[in-house]
């Protein structure tokens, strides 16, 4: 898929002029949620999924010799469900929701969902290294290299990548209902998303200071670093759920859009004091707040359009995808403690 295809098709943006913080707050309260949303509780859906994903991950990484490396891998992937700083597990949620939308069983998507988290964690561990971001903490606790040493952090990342593939292969129900050929496409998709034209490209561009440049470069970094991963999540769910080519393409576009949207809203919230400031809040400096909010609106509309395609055929099963768009923008609830209470 051409890198810029997402943005070329966008409608002319409405440029909001008001203060961002007020705007996001106003939107959250006045958002005209689709009528059917009332019957769907995203928080409950998400919470139950987090519990499934956490136990899948916990079982996938038993403590065994050599203990140091397995301990470091668990540390990187399992930040402590229900505690402060617990992971939201958005990529797995997207993967499972796409599979369930098409009528596929949750069990078909859960191993890939867990693999997405392993791959994501692996790249974060390397991203935090002293030679990169030199981040001493991640999600409110020491980053993996701070806790285990730089050499062990490099190796933990190196071991999490293959573990993701091992886990998908040994736990996905295959050849029934997932044929081997489909499993191969899922493996290729996972590898592509974190490779040199996917997330690694985003990290490279970020490193090269592309966020200090114009809108196209900024959006490219967001697309590569976050859009690709979300596209991969949705695409894997689509394949595992037995999607046809058109459905897969639509879910890919949906996933990519929502990945960028989610991150951009994070940056807007950071810049307006609603969240922790990320290093790359400079995205906002490049785009300007008004333009950033304009893009948020565009992406939101586009994601809903993609989700709408499925409404006629799948009815209420589209609601998780639909609600996810609203959540990405409004962050109407907190997930912290969610897994602990489930």
């Amino acid at each position, binding site marked *: 898929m051409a890198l810029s295809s997402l943005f070329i098709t966008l409608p002319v943006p409405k440029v909001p002029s008001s203060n961002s913080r007020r705007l996001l707050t106003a939107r959250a309260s006045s958002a005209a949620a689709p009528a059917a949303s009332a019957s769907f509780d995203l928080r409950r859906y998400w919470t139950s999924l987090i519990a499934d994903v956490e136990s899948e991950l916990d079982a996938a990484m038993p403590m065994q010799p*050599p203990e140091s490396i397995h301990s470091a891998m668990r540390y990187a992937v399992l930040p402590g469900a229900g505690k402060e700083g617990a992971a939201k597990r958005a990529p797995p949620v997207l993967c499972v929701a796409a599979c369930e939308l098409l009528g596929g069983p949750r069990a078909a998507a859960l191993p890939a969902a867990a693999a997405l988290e392993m791959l994501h964690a692996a790249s974060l561990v*390397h991203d935090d290294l002293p030679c990169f971001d030199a981040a001493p903490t991640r999600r409110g606790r020491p980053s993996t290299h701070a806790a285990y040493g730089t*050499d062990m952090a*490099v190796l933990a990342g190196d071991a999490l990548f*293959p573990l993701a593939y091992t886990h998908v292969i040994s736990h996905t129900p295959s050849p029934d209902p997932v044929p081997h050929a489909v499993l191969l496409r899922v493996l290729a998709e996972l590898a592509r998303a974190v490779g040199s034209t996917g997330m690694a490209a985003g990290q490279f561009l970020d490193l090269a200071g592309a966020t200090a440049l114009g809108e196209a470069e900024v959006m490219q970094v967001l697309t590569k670093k976050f859009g690709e991963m979300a596209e991969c999540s949705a695409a894997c769910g689509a394949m595992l759920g037995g999607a046809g080519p058109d459905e897969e393409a639509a879910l890919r576009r949906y996933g990519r859009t929502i990945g960028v949207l989610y991150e951009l809203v994070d940056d807007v919230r950071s810049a307006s004091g609603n969240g922790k400031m990320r290093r790359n809040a400079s995205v906002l400096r490049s785009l300007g707040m008004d333009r950033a909010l304009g893009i948020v609106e565009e992406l939101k509309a586009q994601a809903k359009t993609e989700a709408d395609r499925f409404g006629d055929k799948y009815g209420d099963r589209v609601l998780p995808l639909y609600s996810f768009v609203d959540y990405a923008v409004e962050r109407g609830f907190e997930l912290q403690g969610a897994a602990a209470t489930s």
Partner: protein
Amino acid sequence: MAMAFHFHPLAATRVHLSPLPFAAAAAAGAPSPSSSSVAIAAPHHHHGRRRFSAVVATAAASAAATTEFDFKAYMGERAVAVNRALDAAIPAGEPPAALHDAMRYALLAGGKRVRPALCLAACAVVGGPEAWAMPAAAAVEMVHTMSLVHDDLPCMDDDDLRRGKPTCHVVYGEPIAVLAGDALLSLSFHHMASVGSYPPDVDPEKHPARVVRAIGELARCIGSEGLVAGQVVDLEMTGTSEPVPLERLEYIHLHKTAALLEASVVIGAIIGGGTDEQIERLRKYARSIGLLFQVVDDILDVTKSSEELGKTAGKDLASDKTTYPKLLGLEKSREFAEKLLSDAIEQLDCFDKEKAAPLLHLANYIAHRQN
């Protein structure tokens, strides 16, 4: 696939941490037609039946049996084909250019391509066309390269030179070297999983299941139960003044070196359509030559000059590193190497002589290299 995970030979040795790797594998339930002979593989049980030179003579004799085989030409041709496949596998013209440059720098730096050759030869020995295994052969070289790039980093071994050239992080900087390694690892799996990497004549019924199984083998052999496990235990041993016990040394070598050789032959044999028995024999072959590779390395370090080696000789002694000659003495180390070579060659007995010639010569090459 279930079979592959059931045998789990690395796990078997890990659990037992035995200096008798194959006896441990046999105890774990692997079919081991040769277990009676391999059970005496450990140096301290050595029977001294044949001297190292005798093995050389045996090897020469069996080489003569396959008269027409030209090992040097074989390796040269495979290296050319593998290099071509590697060159074509890196996304061309796609940004970011500097990241792809760094990947190419590390991957296309030359080298003997022993792992890909093992993979192709294993596919051929079970009767598969070599072309079927080329994506897997390229994948193991990508993984090998990636492990070298990360190994050379300042936070790991901190090496400035590899094969006479500045290491990847010296040329491109540390962050890009980390990313290039990660990207090569991803590329290896992407390349192996993609339908487009394979020739059109693969069996459409059997091929997908074989590739899934092969990817599972590769991932397991290089992860926290394979290659990485060896690196971790090696790291934990460095800096302690205590000599490393023999079983630890063997654990490190079986994981750090043998695991990727094991992956190379096993995935070649799987994709070539080998039977489970053939696959397990080749697995044992690879584990023997993997250990052999390190024993020979240790012997060369104390017996050859820097000029002969093309690198600093006596480095192991100077750095207090535990080696086989240090633990067993030179003579017993040679006897151990001899035993490992004959074990490896024995695994090839059940294969067609002509088709097994490359694997036989690869084992001899590893045993008798002079640098």
